[in-house]
């Protein structure tokens, strides 16, 4: 029986001082700078539009990048990747339609903030959190990629299962006070996640003979339906009865005090995001969920979450952008993609005749540092774009609902259809919207459903894989220390507060 934890055969080579000498190659070449700016702008737009994802954009642009040299071409794709993850937050906050799955958690509190007339504050916070998360993760990539990449090896199915359990442990308390309803919502999400071919048995479930469902339900149509279409239907009921109270204050950016207040959350989420990003099987969507959960768990006022808490925006945004740098760690250092978009960038490297992996660090330092500095530059750029844009974009919340929401509906349909040019996705979106309205009316929140949906596939698959690896013995988990730490955290999260209260009550007597 092989030892369950990764054994390092040989120590990874220390990288020495990061190659500042290569930075000049990036920052003095106007073509590279121009490409990074274009990549960042395209990324923000593509990220913001529901149905267009950064992985799709990177894949579409891959053949064109062939006309360029390796450094500009990969710098371009990497900048697009960084900015695309950030872009998703804009539509999530303004119109409750997450532009990409990683931004789903941003909508939980970002949209309520916009409704309260704090769109600018939410967008500004999202920008600063994204840039901080992205920058920290790139710095980590710069200093420790070959060492950290090894973390990926110590994460097998049991560790993923424990991570997913930790995420789901917040299910009951993720939103509002209706714990039972949250649990029911979470189960509904898990149930939706079972649609499609089961990975471990190859049996298709709940597909009703529709071939498009074999691969499972796509996240984007469900998210658009559950958030934006539900909101539209809700708004439609109030139309004409409620006047808009949103004022020009909506354009105000976050204050320094705001940023100081969320700084701890940003740092925590950056760490979480970088770490989860490094894991090859998981990307920014799970990172954002866990980032949101932890922001709530550590908050002094968790009851504000879901009603427009500024930490609820900073938490997921820092985490999902940190996951982009994290995802590049195994991509470059091991040649194993850390996310769907990183997989396409990996393809881009291969198309250039390069073979990503341990050798790349020895043979192509100029290229690697070119990518690092391009990503840093892209982060700095969307700080500017984001803060200026926040003032501009937030005007959207001043548009009267009667004009805004019909336009949003058009965008929803285009987005759902555009994903794979499939009408099935459009019907899924419509169904999710109607379901969302019904659930909202009876006091169910969207957050637990989304969480069940995001973590459902992971929790089921990783458990099934773990049980095969452990010869169907549950005791196998006892031999996996990393998994045990996650289980303890999960139990602490559920039982910690009641236990403390009980302890205090006993002492008080």
């Amino acid at each position, binding site marked *: 029986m092989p*030892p*369950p*934890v*990764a*054994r390092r*055969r*040989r120590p990874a080579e220390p990288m020495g001082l990061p190659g500042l000498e290569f930075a000049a190659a990036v920052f003095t070449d106007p073509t590279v700078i121009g490409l990074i700016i274009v990549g960042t702008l395209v990324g923000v737009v593509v990220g913001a539009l529901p149905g267009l994802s950064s*992985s*799709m954009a*990177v*894949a579409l642009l*891959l*053949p064109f990048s*062939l*006309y360029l040299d390796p450094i500009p071409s990969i710098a371009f794709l990497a900048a697009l990747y960084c900015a695309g993850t950030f872009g998703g937050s804009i539509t999530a906050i303004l119109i409750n339609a997450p532009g990409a799955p990683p931004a789903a958690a941003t909508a939980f509190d970002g949209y309520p903030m916009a409704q309260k007339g704090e769109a600018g504050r939410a967008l500004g916070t999202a920008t600063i959190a994204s840039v901080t998360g992205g920058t920290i993760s790139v710095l980590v990539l710069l200093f420790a990629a070959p060492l950290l990449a090894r973390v*990926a*090896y110590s994460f*097998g*199915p049991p560790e993923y299962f424990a991570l997913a359990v930790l995420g789901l442990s917040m299910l009951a308390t993720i939103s509002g006070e209706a714990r039972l309803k949250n649990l029911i919502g979470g189960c509904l999400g898990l149930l939706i996640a079972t649609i*499609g*071919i089961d*990975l*471990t*048995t*190859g049996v*298709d479930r709940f597909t009703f003979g529709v*071939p*498009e469902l*074999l*691969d*499972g339900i796509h996240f984007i149509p469900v998210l658009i339906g559950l958030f934006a279409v539900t909101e539209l239907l809700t708004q439609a009921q109030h139309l004409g009865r409620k006047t808009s109270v949103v004022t020009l204050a909506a354009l105000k950016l976050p204050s320094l005090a705001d940023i100081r207040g969320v700084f701890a959350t940003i740092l925590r989420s950056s760490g979480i995001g970088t770490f989860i990003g490094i894991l*090859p*099987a998981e990307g920014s969507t799970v990172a954002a969920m866990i980032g949101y959960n932890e922001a709530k768990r550590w908050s002094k006022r968790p009851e504000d979450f879901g009603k427009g808490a500024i930490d609820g925006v900073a938490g997921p945004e820092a985490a999902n952008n940190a996951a982009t740098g994290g995802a590049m760690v*195994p991509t470059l250092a*091991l040649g*194993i*993609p850390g996310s*769907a*978009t*990183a*997989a*396409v960038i*990996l*393809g881009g490297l*291969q*198309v*250039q*005749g*390069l*073979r990503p*992996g*341990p*050798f790349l660090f020895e043979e192509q330092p100029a290229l690697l540092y070119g990518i690092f500095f391009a990503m840093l530059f892209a982060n700095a750029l969307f700080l500017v774009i984001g803060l200026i844009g926040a003032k501009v974009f937030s005007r959207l919340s001043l548009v009267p609902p009667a004009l805004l929401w019909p336009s949003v509906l058009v965008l929803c349909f285009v987005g759902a259809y555009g994903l*794979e*040019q499939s009408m099935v996705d459009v019907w899924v979106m419509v169904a999710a919207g109607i379901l969302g309205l019904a659930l909202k009316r009876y006091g169910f929140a969207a957050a637990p459903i989304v969480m069940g949906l995001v973590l459902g596939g992971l929790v089921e*698959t990783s458990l099934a*894989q773990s049980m*095969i*690896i452990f*010869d169907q013995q549950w005791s196998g988990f006892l031999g996996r220390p990393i998994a045990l730490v996650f289980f303890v955290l999960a139990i602490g999260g559920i039982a910690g507060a009641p236990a403390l209260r009980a302890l205090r009550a006993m002492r008080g007597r």
Partner: protein
Amino acid sequence: MFEATGREPMVRGRVSALKRLVETLGLLTCAAVLVGAVHAQERFPSGPIDIVTHASPGGGTDTTARTLLIGAREALGTDIAVIPRTGGGGIVAMSYVANRPRDGHTVLAITPTHLFAIARGQGPLTIDDLVPVARATDDPLVITVRSDSGIDDIEDLIALGRERPIKWGSTQVGSIDHVAGAVFAQVAGTELAVVPFAGGGEIVTNLMGGSIDAAALNLTEALQQIERGEFSALAVMAGERIEALPDTPTTVELGYDATFSTVRGYVVLRGTDEASIEILEQGLLAAMDHPSYLAYLDGAGLSRSAVAGREAWGEQLEQLYGDARQAMIDLGIIQP
């Protein structure tokens, strides 16, 4: 003659006069041959061409197709797009293509995974519907273990498998590496416990981390780690040794008749006009001779010899389908 030059593809950028001359001459020859055949035929391609894949962005099939685009656009003088129709082991992609007009403007990227699906009777197509156009890559499967696993050769692995089931990493049920593992286990008389993962990258990390004992990895997925000394290649699942791993025996040499390779190629559906297929074949072959495609093959560790025209590809397609059917029969999945 004027009509023939009208067929000339768009030449972009600064192409040397010589190259242009050669291209024009080539096309004139081509046109001369085709003049009879295309007589009453519409000009092909008369619009954009779609390459339909079953793989999500970043996978081997997707990257192969996208790398082709530049050269193919030049050679065919039309816009070409990759259309991903993911899911169901190629069934979604095949259903999509089955509903498109059979005029050569829709090209299907085929892998053994599609052939397994067809052999199982899934999806709307049969093997007779597929008309070969060109072969793109040949990525053999390699039985791989961790170097410090104590398993030094295939006999060690088989001995382990007779003690307890080998924990065998594989992509989804019914995929080529799953079938490869099952067939190998059958001919070697050993037991497998198949652990399915979503993709090759996850298998590599889990093999490295020790959660699984062995896997049949594509050469492109395993080569880095093998060169690095982290993985040992026990056997190449092929009839002949391969360039990249000259010292690794093949399964056939070792006496186990289990050969599997992820061969990717392009087909159109039966009913497509013969002249269009010929233009398409020439266009795709030219595209795969383009420096960008060759750089990709080299970068990924793939052999350049995989690129082949429709005759060689057609023969192999037939043989691959026969193998796929036989594997399904041997495993008791379908009746002969």
